[in-house]
Each structure stands twice: as C-alpha cells, then as structure tokens.
C-alpha cells in the first residue's frame, strides 16, 4: 500500500515540476522580442471586468490550435477596446495574443517576473510609473468623470465636499481624489473637493456594481468617462455629475525589471501603435467601443 503513495506523490511532484518548466526547453532568446517571436504568442495583462475596455466573452470558444498557455485566455474568449488593441499589436508583431488576468495593483507595481510581457490596460503615463515601465506612444486619451446614482441630489463636483466616494485601487482617479494627480496641469480641469473619504475597491467597474447592489457606503464614484457611459448604456441607474475632471494619456506598458532585455519589444510595440494611429485602426476601434474618437493628437 505504501508503494502506491510513494509513486502517487512522486508523480504529483513531477507533474508540478513539469507544468512549471514546460516552456524552458528551447534555446533561450537573449531579448524579450525574440523570446516572444520564438514562442509564437504575446502575453498581455488585462482586467477581465473593465468593460468597455476589457471583459470576458464567455460565449467565445477557445481555438483548438491555440499556443496560449492554459492559465491565459485567447482573443476569442475576451472582448473590449483594450483587448482589440492588444490583438492588433500581436498581429503586427506576427504572434498570437494571449491574456493573463492578474490584479491591477500587481500590474502597476512592476516586477512582473516574466509572468506576462506587456500591459494593454489603459495605464496612464504618470509619475512614478515611467521609473518602473517603458511606455509606448499613448493609444488613447480618455477623461475622468464622476458618476452618481440617477436620483442623487448633488448638482456639482463641489457638492461632494466631505462625502464618501468610490475609486479603484492604484488608479489616476484615486490620485485625483487625494489631490495628488501628477499630470500636465493643462490636462487637469477640476480639483477634488476637500474632506473626501475614500472607499477603495479592486477595480473600476466594482464601484457602479456596488451602487447597483444597493450599497450606500459612498455617494459617488470617480472613474473613466468610458466606464460611466457604458454603465448608462447598460441601463444602470447612474448619471454623470458635472463635466470632465482631467484628461489622461493611456499607453502600453512594459516592465523595466524584465530579466530579458525589453527594449526591442518596446520599439516594436511603439512602432505598431504609431502605425495603428496612422492608418486609422485606433480611431475606428475607439468609435466602435466608445462612440467617439479618443485617439486624436497623441503621436509626437
């Protein structure tokens, strides 16, 4: 009887070891771009609950011939603006695009450890991120706004003074609420009222979803205008309070702490984004998902 357990546990440990080492059997590439091209797929981090930028398509069928690792999703299983931008970048690099789903604050912390290659997740270029990441040319520039329940009696941003607001962790919206938004001053249109208390949730969509669930821990939420517009379009009982608060430039991020040299991948991705601006791909995707073109005037 004991032999069975010895064999079973050896097999278990072996299976574990193999599942981790499975990829390391080719001659190793010496930079990230070559590694990506060699394995034939690009791993992109994404938030699976951030429509209209990114979400799961549960009706999508995973193609049988996919190269994507089993803990990632294929493009068929995802939908959204960021997802389609990432897919287009992968196509232009000549590889398949796969999506990994770590938490947003793990993505923004950097030091990804090679678990995924790039972040196409509406990451704003703001300090201290340029110290941690290489950024591509921005691929779109949404604005931040405030959403409130449709029956709210608040009429302007200043009415929020002293109240509780919901924001997602590690976002520019949290920085704005804290009065610590470090963007170009010409892109900031309104200052946060004083005395705000903050309810911090893991992702942006969880704020309106909490309101919908009847939670009253907060009276407003600060997020991207694309999110508030999608909430209204989805029939949630919310409305926008006031106008745009600030404009942020969102770009593709690559970890500077990557063990393989990422600079060639950064250059290739940047070229792909510039080409997508030039041939109208990004404009069309923006109009498709947001109803308006948020990609103008971003190429320097």
């Amino acid at each position, binding site marked *: 009887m004991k032999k069975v*357990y010895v064999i079973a546990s050896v*097999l*278990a440990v072996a299976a*574990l070891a193999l*599942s*981790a080492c499975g990829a390391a059997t080719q001659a190793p590439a010496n930079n990230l771009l070559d590694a990506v091209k060699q394995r034939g797929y690009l791993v992109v981090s994404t938030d699976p609950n951030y*429509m209209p930028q990114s979400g799961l398509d549960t009706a999508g069928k995973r193609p049988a011939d996919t190269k994507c690792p089993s*803990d990632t999703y294929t493009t068929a299983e995802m939908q959204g603006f960021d997802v389609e931008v990432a897919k287009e970048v992968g196509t232009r690099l000549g590889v398949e695009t796969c999506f990994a*789903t770590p938490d947003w604050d793990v993505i923004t912390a950097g030091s990804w450890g090679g678990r995924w290659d790039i972040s196409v997740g509406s990451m704003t270029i703001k300090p201290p991120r340029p110290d941690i990441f290489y950024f591509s040319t921005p691929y779109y520039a949404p604005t931040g706004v405030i959403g409130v329940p449709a029956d709210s009696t608040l009429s302007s941003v200043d009415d929020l003074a002293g109240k509780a607001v919901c924001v997602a962790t590690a976002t520019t919206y949290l920085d704005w609420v804290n009065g610590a938004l470090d963007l170009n001053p010409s892109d900031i249109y309104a200052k946060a009222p004083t005395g705000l208390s903050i309810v911090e949730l893991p992702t942006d969509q969880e704020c309106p979803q909490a309101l*919908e669930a009847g939670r009253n821990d907060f009276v407003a939420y600060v997020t991207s205008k694309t999110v508030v517009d999608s909430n209204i379009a989805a029939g949630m009982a919310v409305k926008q309070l006031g106008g745009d608060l600030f404009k942020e430039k969102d770009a593709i991020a690559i970890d500077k702490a990557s063990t393989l040299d990422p600079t060639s991948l950064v250059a290739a991705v940047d070229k792909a984004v510039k080409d997508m601006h030039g041939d109208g791909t990004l404009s069309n995707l923006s109009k498709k998902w947001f109803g308006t073109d948020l990609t103008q005037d971003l190429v320097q």
Partner: protein
Amino acid sequence: MSQLQKSQAELLYAAQQRKVRQFRTNVAISWIVILGLLIALFNGPIKLDSVFIRKNLFFIAGGVGQTFYISILSIGLAMCLALLAALGRLSTFPPFYALSTFYVSLIRGTPLYLQIFFFFLALPQLGIVLPGLFAGVLALGLNYGAYMSETFRAGISSVSKGQREAAIALGMTPQQTMQRIVLPQALRFAIPPMGNDFISMTKDSALVSATGFVHEIMWRATRVGRAEFHNLEALIIAAVFYWIMTLILTFFQSRIEARLARGDR
C-alpha cells in the same frame, strides 16, 4: 411460518429493522420537502435569470477541472509532507524533531489565505517567481500537510508496540520496521481522515482564485457575476458545483472506508 412460530429474537430483530427503515424513509421525505421548498423559492419569490444561467453555466463548469487538478496535486504534496512531519514528530533525533514541530507550528499558525499570497506575491521579491497554480498548490499542500501530520502521527502510534518488538526479534532494522510493518498498518487508519481532508481541500482550492491566474470555479463565478450583476445566479451555480463534487467524493470516501474496515469485523 406463522407469527407464533417465529422466535422472540427474530421478532425483536424485525421490529428494530422496521424502526430503522421508518426513520430512513422519514428522513428521505424531509430531504425531499426541503429541496422542494428551495426549488419553489427559486421559482417564485426569488427570480433567477435563466438566460444568464444558460449563458454562463458552461463557462463556470469549466473550472471544475482546474479545481480537481489543484486538489489532486496539493493532496499528493500534503501526503508527502505529512508523512515526513509525522516521522519527525516521532523521531529521537533533535534537529529532525525541531524542524517538523517548527513547520507544523508555523503553518498552523498562519492563515491559508496569507500563505497563498505569500508564495504568489512575496517570493518574487526574493527572485522566486512562481506561476499562480504552482503557488496555490504549494500553499495548499504545505497547509494541509501540517494538519494531516497529526493524523499520520496518530496512525503510526496506533500500531501496537508488539508489532515493533516482533520486527526487532526477527532482526529487522528500524528502517525496515517502519517501511514494511508500521507504515502499511498506519496508513490503513490514516486514509479515511485523509479522504475527508481531500474533500475539504477541494473547497479550500477556491482561495487560490485570489492569485488571479487560476481560473477555477470561484474565479469564473465571481468574474461573470460581477461583470453582469448576476452574482446571485453565478454564486449559486458555483455552490451547486462544489456541493455535487463533495457528494460524489463523499460517496467514494465512504466506500473506501467500508472496504478498509472489512478486516476488523
């Protein structure tokens, strides 16, 4: 044979059997009533969105394979560690004893949730980057190994001293005694509790969804539930899957238990 010709013993036995059968029938009827009430509840006052359920049932079901995979790998690791820790606890060699008591105390003294995050989030700062599945299995295996070491220790201790004495009398070394005489008998007593641990591990595997990389039942249910604001339906589906898994495993568990206890009757 008429009633009068049946012996007293037979009549008593028949009466006992009747009572047992009546009890079982009444329990079954009560179960059916409870289930019926639940079904009525979800068809009447609480409306579940059947469109959402039909759309996402298959997606959430896809997590069952991952849950099993995690649990099987973890229980394998846990069994190895539990055996080593149990042998350490029974050892007369101080470093071995100290190491195993330290391991058991540390792991039992920290939450499983913390351990999962530790292997996934903290180790990268030391340069060790584990995939989400790896980190989850390691945490679950270490955690359950610590708890199961007590079971193993009890099993090993329960093998009577006479067995060990006989082995020495036959000229076996301590290693041979452990390997050939003690462990096979100890494992017979340790397997039923381990079966229960495996079942409970399939539920604790839900915590591995915290890494974000393991797309098992709970991760899938919370993602689609949140995204479409149908958390009630999504979590009920997940609960039903876990429940059915547990029922099936418990059934096999009791069969194994009955089989192993055969020698004792």
